[in-house]
């Protein structure tokens, strides 16, 4: 067990933002708990500073950064939200701190001394939306650039406690992914084996967005939506990648009872590297000969094609008609006999 894990005192957390929108922080404030700050304290996290939530501004904030960098204050967890902006021309000049240092440089200095380094959101993990288009700002993740290891800190980087950058990918992240990851770090329960191939915590990345999708009956029969607000499956025409994307969005829900597919729109793979440039319009499923090129994870193509054609021919009238309507035009039949 590593040194930090056995320490009983709270872990000091410093949160910085760079090339992103701040949405992961705003999402974190949606956490379903009595009081986020009490929860952080209870799981052993001491918030040194956060750009949206702390009192200290300007020189007071800079003093905290420098105390961490010099070791005067122990930096146990460094969270970065937003991509690292390396541009223009590798200078980091697209995001400068007061008095001229680039945020890129500050993050690099702090990552050297951090016990754990956490990328909060797909921007900090892989570059994300900020790396979209021609990536004019040379945006990258802390330890990945798109799906390739490297990024700002390099493939071999390990934080002081031994883990690579923990990538809580998502655009935005679910509040509980963040809280549970911090909790596992604080208690020493997160090891290499708890991270997936893209260093995402497996506590949410071991599921597919498809798991728990309320459109499952439509999926089974390939009864597909044709326009936004239709009830049918979003995979065939509307660009949904939920059967391929790693996240538990339909198991633990968002904002009470929501998720993207429950909101009537496609899963656009926001937890995956490179989601910002899918190579096709987000809302239109790319197909070859009428068959979606993105098949469900672990499903052999021949079987998918065979089952899809069989299930389409067997679609009940109710499912077929409801799929292209914005409310149930036919409700499930009620039999006088009890379900067996």
């Amino acid at each position, binding site marked *: 067990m590593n040194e930090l894990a056995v320490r009983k005192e709270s872990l000091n957390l410093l949160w910085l933002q760079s090339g992103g929108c701040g949405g992961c922080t*705003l999402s974190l*404030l949606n956490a379903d708990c009595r009081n986020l700050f009490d929860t952080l304290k209870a799981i052993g996290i001491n918030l040194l500073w956060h750009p949206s939530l702390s009192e200290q501004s300007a020189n007071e904030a800079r003093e905290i950064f420098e105390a961490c960098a010099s070791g005067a204050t122990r930096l146990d967890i460094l969270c970065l939200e937003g991509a690292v902006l390396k541009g223009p021309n590798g200078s980091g000049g697209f995001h400068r701190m007061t008095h001229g240092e680039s945020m890129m440089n500050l993050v690099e200095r702090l990552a050297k001394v951090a016990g754990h380094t956490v990328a909060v959101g797909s921007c900090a993990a892989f570059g994300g939306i900020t790396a979209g288009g021609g990536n004019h700002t040379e945006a990258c993740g802390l330890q990945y650039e798109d799906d390739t290891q490297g990024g700002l800190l390099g493939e071999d980087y390990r934080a002081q406690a031994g883990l690579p950058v923990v990538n809580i990918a998502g655009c935005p992240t679910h509040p509980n992914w963040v809280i549970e990851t911090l909790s596992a770090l604080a208690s020493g329960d997160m090891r290499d084996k708890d991270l997936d191939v893209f260093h995402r915590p497996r506590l949410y990345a071991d599921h597919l967005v498809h798991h728990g999708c309320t459109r499952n009956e439509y999926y089974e029969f390939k009864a597909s939506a044709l326009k936004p*607000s239709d009830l049918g499956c979003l995979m065939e025409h509307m660009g949904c990648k939920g059967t391929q994307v790693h996240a538990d969005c339909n198991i633990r829900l*968002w904002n009470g009872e929501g*998720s993207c597919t429950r909101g009537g729109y496609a899963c656009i793979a926001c937890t995956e590297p490179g989601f910002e440039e899918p190579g096709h319009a987000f809302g239109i499923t790319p197909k070859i000969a009428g068959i979606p090129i993105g098949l469900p994870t672990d499903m052999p193509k021949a079987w998918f094609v065979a089952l899809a054609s069989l299930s389409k021919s067997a679609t009940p009238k109710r499912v077929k008609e409801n799929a292209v309507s914005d409310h149930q035009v036919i409700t499930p039949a009620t039999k006088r006999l009890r379900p067996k």
Partner: protein
Amino acid sequence: MSRRIIGPFNRVEGDLEVTLEIESGRVRAAYVNSPMYRGFEQILAGKHPLDALVYVPRICGICSVAQSAAAAQALAQSMGIQAPQNGILAANLTLAAENLADHLSHFYLFFMPDFAREGYRGRAWFADAESRFKSVSGSATADVLPVRAKFMNTMGYLAGRWPHTLALQPGGSSRPLEEAERLRLKILLAEFRTFLERTLFGDRLESVAALHSEAALFAWMESRSLGADFPRFLSIARDLEMHTMGRATDRFMSFGAYSDGEQHVFKSGVWQDGQLQVLDTNAIREDVTSSWMAGNDALSPDEGLTVPQPDKEGAYSWCKAPRLSGQVVETGALARQMVAGHPLVRDLVARHGASVMARVVARLLEFTLVLPVMESWLRQIQPGAAFCLPATEIEDARGVGLIEAARGSLGHWLDVRNGKIHNYQIIAPTTWNFSPRDAAGEPGALEQALVGLVAQEGSDAAPLAVQHVVRSFDPCMVCTVH
């Protein structure tokens, strides 16, 4: 004279640095720098028009729905479609929920904690303010965070999730509501009303909405116990004379908020020289004289350009400088209510001009004006009727989306050619308020509002008055430059 660079400002939703020139203990001039550039307008070029709905909410974590709504409106206009009644109601509900949640976050998490700073320890109200509003540990935070999270459950039903939804479409909302969901939304709004009336105002929303003058406002404050947070703020603001802090141009602009397709709940217009004028958005130009952006001419957003030029001489911000008929305007809740004509807000400004106090009062007043409208919209939703029309394919078309985010006027200008986005220009509320100097040397609204504030020389701390004025605009820095 001394020069002081203050940054990074926090609790401003992004990155901000302010340079002050101080003389005889007062700010003589201010230079506002937005120090981060991401380049959404460059990212959007060449994309499928509907892809804008994926990218633009991600400009901003705090006003993502506002960005979606502006894009949906620009797309709808370019496609020549109008959402059905349910779609309009659902989109307005979604935007209103975000705007009120933002007002809540701003007041409790971003603005009020500054009154718990050590610099105020001598004040009679300090102990109360410290225990109530101290960042992270104050009792208000513990009250507000769960209330906000619960209120945001409205987004689960209306938008799938927040932030970054794709529910707002040019043809309406992708999220049809069933009757059971309409009822659950009604309960969530009722719970939020209870919090506002019990904890924020200590009075019925309708009673606060009816306050019509500064005198009535303070008489109301005197009649309330300080157990509620709005009276608490008023009492502090009076002691610190916040009605004298932070006046900018007193020229106010609103694009108009919450349209039903024909009329706005809060109308559009420009208030200047003591009267309301029609807003001509064709008179908007973006000046880049002080921006690290290529180009010389102030361009209309119809033809706008976004090409970074990091080594540009004389520039000091990534933010462009939007001007209306060549003039600096202020936007935000205060501007919106000045244009809409709320008598309390008009009275405050008539007496003292724009101020920290007027901005905060206008923002909180919106809870009392908007929540009842949301309740009414929800009653009008008809489960079973259409929520969304299909989008139409466009080859060559233009569209403009003009809406009001929590913090002011947000515009999207879309130009589609050959079925792809040719140009996409965005002017966000804080782009107006925190703009740098223009070709005529005219400072932006915040730059003007900071002049004259008390600031000690020889310290690199951020003066408290400066912090209040900066945050009174409810800045959103990630939107500012995008």
